[in-house]
């Protein structure tokens, strides 16, 4: 690292030339904008903040021997305000989703001298899950085509908005849908009150609505097929002045990811306390087989996805051009990997596809007392649910996997298909379930019906 050697050199020079001078205490302000209502940013946001991982990794020797750090965290509900604060130089580091990242990079490049750098990812879903279109739970809409002539709201400029545009284009209904701009909280309230036909939102809002029983997913971002990712941007002037601080931040991001992977159920428990998002919802993201693959590397495929996102923004919202080569840099994340003795290229080339990775994963029951229990087959799973119901035990949530995409689902929102041979499969979307039921001459049922067959009759 050029910057590292320069920093150490500077430190040495100071140490040699000014040995007798008293240490000059210097304060470095590190201000980070994160989003506690966007799960994919947690490894560069709330987890780093609450576990004190940044403090742990910040350099304390060489040029930084006498430095005091003043770390501030600011919580936002979307990426736009973070970019605004970064432009005003009130935040140095920002964490946000793909579309807001593009706006961030492009808006900075449109200024005379200010720039940001895209330095790392936080997590991704290869197929684009995390974004979803949700309808009120009592709605009679089950697929995207049925949205013709209806109004759909979404936070304009967010990843969910980009996904919705592509989904409507793919379905050829763009002209017939009236699109409204609603922030996540407003959209969720409108869904709960049944005031809007559908709402498209980012993680974890659609699962929150499902879990609370107000909304039902009709379209998952995975169907649009564009990867959904989040990343970290930093002001270039800050990164160039204190490269070691940025590397330290990314080491904290990597450690936060490891901490979650090692013990997801304990992690979601704590994250619920920090963010107020139910742990059962967070588990669908952060568990093995969850929506989110934690991985800070910058993959070529991500750059392609971001370039695609940029073309959408240019077309729809006249966003200025973005020089991706100047914006994206792997220097800092590579330095962080090297410092931790990890192999960057190995992580960079590995990509997790939920359809492959989640095949054959066990169904899960979150027992309020006994924790998470795993079941290799659906009959075992359903029998266990029936038994627990018989004993009056409280189940926090149940999890199954969509046969079509491999995505983790809440058992209570999944469509179960009971085939002729007595085997079960589960689905996210009703049309998929109906198609499969026709294929295997099966029966389409919901969780309570499936469980009822396992309740002892005597």
């Amino acid at each position, binding site marked *: 690292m050029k910057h590292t050697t320069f920093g150490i050199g500077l430190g040495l020079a100071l140490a040699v030339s000014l040995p007798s001078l008293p240490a000059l205490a210097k304060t470095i302000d590190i201000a980070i904008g994160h989003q506690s209502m966007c799960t994919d940013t947690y490894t560069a946001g709330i987890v780093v903040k609450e576990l004190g991982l940044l403090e742990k990794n910040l350099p304390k020797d060489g040029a930084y021997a006498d430095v005091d750090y003043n770390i501030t965290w600011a919580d936002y509900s979307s990426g*736009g*305000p973070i*970019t605004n604060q970064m*432009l005003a130089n009130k935040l140095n580091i920002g964490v946000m989703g793909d579309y807001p990242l593009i706006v961030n990079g492009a*808006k900075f490049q449109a200024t005379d001298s200010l720039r940001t750098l895209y330095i790392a990812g936080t997590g991704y879903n290869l197929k684009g899950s995390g974004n979803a279109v949700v309808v009120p739970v009592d709605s009679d809409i089950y697929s995207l085509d049925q949205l013709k002539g209806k109004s759909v709201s979404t936070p304009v400029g967010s990843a969910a908005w980009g996904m919705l545009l592509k989904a409507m284009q793919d379905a050829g209904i763009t002209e017939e849908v009236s699109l409204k*701009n609603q922030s996540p909280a407003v959209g969720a309230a409108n869904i709960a009150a049944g*005031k809007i036909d559908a709402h498209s939102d980012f993680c974890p809002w659609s699962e929150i609505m499902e879990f609370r029983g107000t909304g039902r997913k009709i379209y998952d971002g995975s169907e649009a097929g564009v990867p959904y990712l989040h990343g970290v941007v930093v002001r270039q002037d800050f990164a160039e002045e204190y490269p070691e601080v940025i590397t330290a931040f990314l080491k904290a991001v990597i450690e936060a990811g490891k901490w979650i992977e090692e013990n997801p159920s304990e992690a979601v428990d704590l994250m619920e306390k920090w963010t107020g998002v139910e742990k059962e919802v967070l588990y669908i993201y952060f568990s093995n087989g969850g929506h989110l693959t934690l991985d800070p590397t910058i993959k070529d495929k991500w750059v392609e996805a971001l370039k695609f996102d940029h073309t959408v923004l240019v077309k729809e*919202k006249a966003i200025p051009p973005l020089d991706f080569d100047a914006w994206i840099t792997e220097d800092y994340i590579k330095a962080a990997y090297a410092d931790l003795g990890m192999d960057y290229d190995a992580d960079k080339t590995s990509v997790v596809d939920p359809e492959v990775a989640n095949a054959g994963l066990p169904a899960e029951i979150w027992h309020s007392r006994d924790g998470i229990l795993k079941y290799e087959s659906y009959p075992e799973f359903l029998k266990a649910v029936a038994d627990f119901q018989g004993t009056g035990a409280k189940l926090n949530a149940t999890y199954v996997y969509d046969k079509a995409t491999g995505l983790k689902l809440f058992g209570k929102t999944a469509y179960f298909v009971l085939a002729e041979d007595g085997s079960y499969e589960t689905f996210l979307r009703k049309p998929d379930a109906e198609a499969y039921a026709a294929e295997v001459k099966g029966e389409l049922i919901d969780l309570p019906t499936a469980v009822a067959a396992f309740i002892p009759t005597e």
Partner: protein
Amino acid sequence: MSKLGQVVDTMEDKEDPKEFNATKGHEATVSQKDDLKIQGLSGQDVFNAIARLALHLGEQLKRNASTISLSLISLSLGLFLWHLATAYKLDFYINFQNVPSPSKVFTAFWTHLGDPEFYIHIGVSMQRILTGYITAAVIGIAAGVLMGRSRIARSLIYPYIEVLRPIPAVAWIPLAILMWPTEEASIIYITLLGALFPIVLNTLHGVEQTPEVLVRAAKSLGASRLQIFWHVILPAALPSIAAGLAIGMGVSWFSLLAGEIISGQYGIGYFTWDAYSLINYPDIVVGMLVIGGLGTLSTYAVKLGMQPLLAWQKRAR
């Protein structure tokens, strides 16, 4: 609440010497009550006033030429300073480095003027303001008069006014969505709330200011309660009500943006908010200035509309 009235009084003092008399009226009623003739409002009065107003409008413009030109000079100076601050990227405690220049904002504005959707934004907002404002005016004046004339009504209604008044419009968003049947109704409700409180409080203030001696005089002449209300109390309260209506109009634009967050598709408040989510600074300023401009125009329209009803004051002098 009397402070509110006074603020408008002092603001108008500077703007227009003619308005001075009009809105100082309620104080005049107190000090000059002996000279004051009891005047009711009749159709003839209103007609005369309108005719007089039209006649004098041109004259007034001529008379106020210096005031108007002074205001124009002040505005262009502000524009020029803004231009300088952005051109030289002023960064002296306040930072203008990334603030869009007037020319950029004007270019954005000009582009939007050629876009039919921009007029939809404005039209939709005007409609919301109008509906919310008129409803607020009706409810506000009725509640204010009621509270002013009845101790019981006052004890019953006033606590609500005081408790609800400090709640900011944005805080109402979740409940407004839940309570009202349609999005449009929720937005109008939030706009209405903004206008309601200044109107209620100023009406109450005006009614309370009615000199009791005039009421007694009318009573001794055999006037019924309704007659007293129509010929004595309402005219005496009108200057204050007019001030409340003018302030209410300004505040309803103020809360419009909060309301339009509920359903972002059309509306100038939404336009501004949308520009913020995409960090489009010139459009944000366009939205701000359009709200400011429309707010000014509509407040002026309210004042102009109230003038004929206040004509009695000038004659009373």
